[in-house]
């Protein structure tokens, strides 16, 4: 009887000392409620929250419900998602059962907005409206009208259907009209087309896109002084092309990268229908190596090669590659390297460009949280070559042809970050090597843009 009455002092001491281990508490998710659903389809929601039933202890429940909450927010159907975990109640409840309630707020039927967009040396105003979660599974229907500073206008209508699978596949179909001016080549281009795209991740971070594009292009001369080789290309052409894009980007930031690599390869086959036919390969590679805490060394390379498909189909000037300018090989005018006629660029079928950059913080080190975050100094060496080379079978000979008359420039400057996508560069450039006919720019070059060599 004594033993029954006495509370053992050791047991009481034990329960007070041991910290609470969530993973030791057995828990089972018995019921999941989702409140606030309207047009979102049930099967999509069920697919997303299903994994929560696999949780076996409380820690797993808490972690998984956070994961599921993030997944629900990324579906493109909901604005906010709230989580509430409670013990399960009701007739079928067990002692370790839990009931989880997700409170979701669906996106409105129609959203509209006015944004600004930064492109290469151009800013644009975008007025658009979109219908998010159009049919209940995260689809999006979007219409946009763009007006740019360089008189470029365009609009596009797009329908996006994400498949919500492991590979994060997304199907996109769009039609667009785009007007653009190219004064460095003397023409104005109007493109109207349809494109279909299927993108997926083959392994995490490696994204593939398989696209088909049908474009009606109208090229017209900007003025009476447009050079004759460009005038000869004026008129209408139809391009029907298949494209495959591989994109891998593990940099910590696209604008001011400190570490990581970017790899992008585009292969295009034009000529299934239409009168434009070529095979085009283009490669972009960038490697960032942090040297000390603030100093980054970046090496980048771009190259492209295209070949006419057969004698019946043509390559037009708007398909060719161009080189030179504050976004590619600095120290040259826009499209200033390569075949020119009357100071207007004609483009060519093969090119390569390479850059070696050293990014350092500002000399007086203002530190984090101020100017130091958005400004950097920049030392660079750029090189490149472009022409309609004739390659034979000999690799050594081909390599020699490619590097024979290369261009070189170096310089330094300041970079200013605009948000997370674009930057402004102010550089002082010195062209070192150039060929006859190139349009060089010795001095200060300013550029705004998203993509730089």
């Amino acid at each position: 009887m004594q033993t029954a009455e006495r509370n053992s002092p050791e047991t009481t001491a034990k329960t007070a000392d041991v910290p609470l281990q969530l993973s030791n508490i057995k828990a089972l998710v018995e019921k999941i409620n989702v409140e606030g659903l309207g047009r979102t389809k049930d099967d999509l929601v069920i697919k997303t929250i299903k994994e929560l039933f696999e949780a076996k202890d409380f820690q797993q429940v808490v972690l998984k419900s956070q994961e599921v909450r993030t997944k629900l927010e990324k579906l493109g159907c909901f604005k906010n998602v709230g989580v509430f975990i409670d013990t399960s109640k009701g007739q079928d409840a067990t002692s370790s059962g839990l009931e989880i309630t997700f409170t979701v707020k669906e996106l409105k039927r129609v959203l509209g907005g006015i944004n600004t967009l930064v492109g290469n040396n151009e800013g644009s105003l975008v007025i658009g409206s979109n219908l998010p979660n159009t049919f209940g599974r995260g689809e999006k229907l979007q219409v946009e009208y763009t007006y740019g500073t360089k008189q470029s206008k365009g609009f596009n209508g797009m329908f996006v259907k994400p498949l919500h699978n492991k590979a994060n596949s997304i199907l996109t179909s769009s039609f667009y009209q785009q007007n653009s001016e190219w004064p460095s080549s003397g023409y104005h281009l109007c493109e109207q087309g349809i494109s279909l795209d299927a993108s997926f991740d083959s392994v995490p971070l490696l994204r593939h896109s398989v696209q088909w594009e049908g474009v009606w292009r109208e090229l017209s001369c900007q003025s009476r002084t447009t050079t004759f080789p460009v005038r000869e290309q004026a008129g209408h052409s139809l391009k029907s092309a298949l494209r495959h894009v591989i994109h891998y980007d593990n940099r910590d930031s696209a604008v001011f990268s400190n570490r990581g690599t970017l790899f992008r390869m585009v292969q295009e086959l034009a000529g299934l229908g239409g009168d434009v036919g070529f095979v085009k390969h283009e490669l972009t590679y960038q490697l960032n190596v942090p040297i000390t805490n603030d100093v980054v060394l970046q090496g980048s390379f771009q190259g492209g090669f295209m070949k006419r498909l057969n004698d019946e189909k043509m390559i037009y000037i708007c398909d060719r590659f161009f080189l030179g300018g504050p976004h590619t090989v600095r120290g040259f005018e826009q499209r200033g390297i390569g075949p020119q006629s009357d100071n207007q660029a004609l483009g060519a079928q093969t090119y390569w460009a390479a850059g070696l950059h050293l990014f350092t913080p500002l000399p007086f080190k203002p530190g984090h949280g101020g100017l130091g975050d958005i400004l950097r100094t920049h030392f660079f060496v750029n090189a490149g070559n472009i022409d309609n080379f004739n390659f034979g079978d000999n690799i050594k000979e081909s390599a020699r042809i490619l590097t024979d008359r290369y261009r070189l420039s170096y310089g330094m400057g300041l970079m200013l970050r605009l948000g997370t996508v674009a930057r402004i560069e102010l550089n002082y450039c010195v062209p070192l090597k150039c060929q006859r006919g190139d349009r060089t720019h010795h001095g200060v070059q300013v550029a705004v843009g998203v993509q730089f060599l």
Partner: protein
Amino acid sequence: MPSVLLTDSISFELGALEPWPSDVKLYQPYEVEHILLQDQANSLAVQVFLRMCGLEFQVEMRSNAEHMSPSGKLPFIKCGAFVVADLDPIVSFIANKGINLTDHLDAAQKADMRAYMSLANNILGNAELYISWCDENVLNEVTCPRYGSVYSWPLNTLLTWRKQKQVTKKLTALGWITKTLDEVYEDVDHCCNALSERLGNHLYFFNDRCTELDAVVFGHVFTLLTTPLPDNRLASIVRSYPNLVEACQFLEKAFFQKPTANTTDGDSDNFN
């Protein structure tokens, strides 16, 4: 950037300083399967004019000649660094180099010539446009296949439709769209009558020497006589004025039948 007008006048001034180059080219659409009535008439007019002046040139046929032209009009010539389109600007351009065919005319005759050229281009030119683009028969059997022959599907249908709208708009502005086909044939008849009367029994319109007016009339008459259409009323109207036909044949023999190294087009057909 200098204004376009200033650039034109500067370019004409500069053009006057250079002699006629040896590699001048005349651009037009493909003769056999592409070119249409009005463009053919204009191109022949320019070709015979250049030969009348004794100037060498080569004919280049391009599927996009219409879009290459700085003003959209055909034909156009590339003379050194200058690109000049349409007969009147070409005549002025050549006159700047000191070559012209109207020295022997007095002021009244020059005014007369301009009036008749205007008559020929307005009536015959617009009639050619009307028959090509507004007559259902000709449109479906001749114009659409020819205009679209240089483009792949679906551009050929799209562009032909677009061009038809442009031409219809132009003819509406000129008041031609409301005419019936018979009225158009009547207008052609009246015009040929006026030209025939002016020509009389000479071979040239003025002083027995060739001028631009002869070139323009040659272009239209030759085209109307030699282009096969579903309905041959145009050809028969022109044929009912034998002096016009004779003048046309004479010019053809004089300037086209010699097989020269200057032309790359097929030499002109005979009348049938």
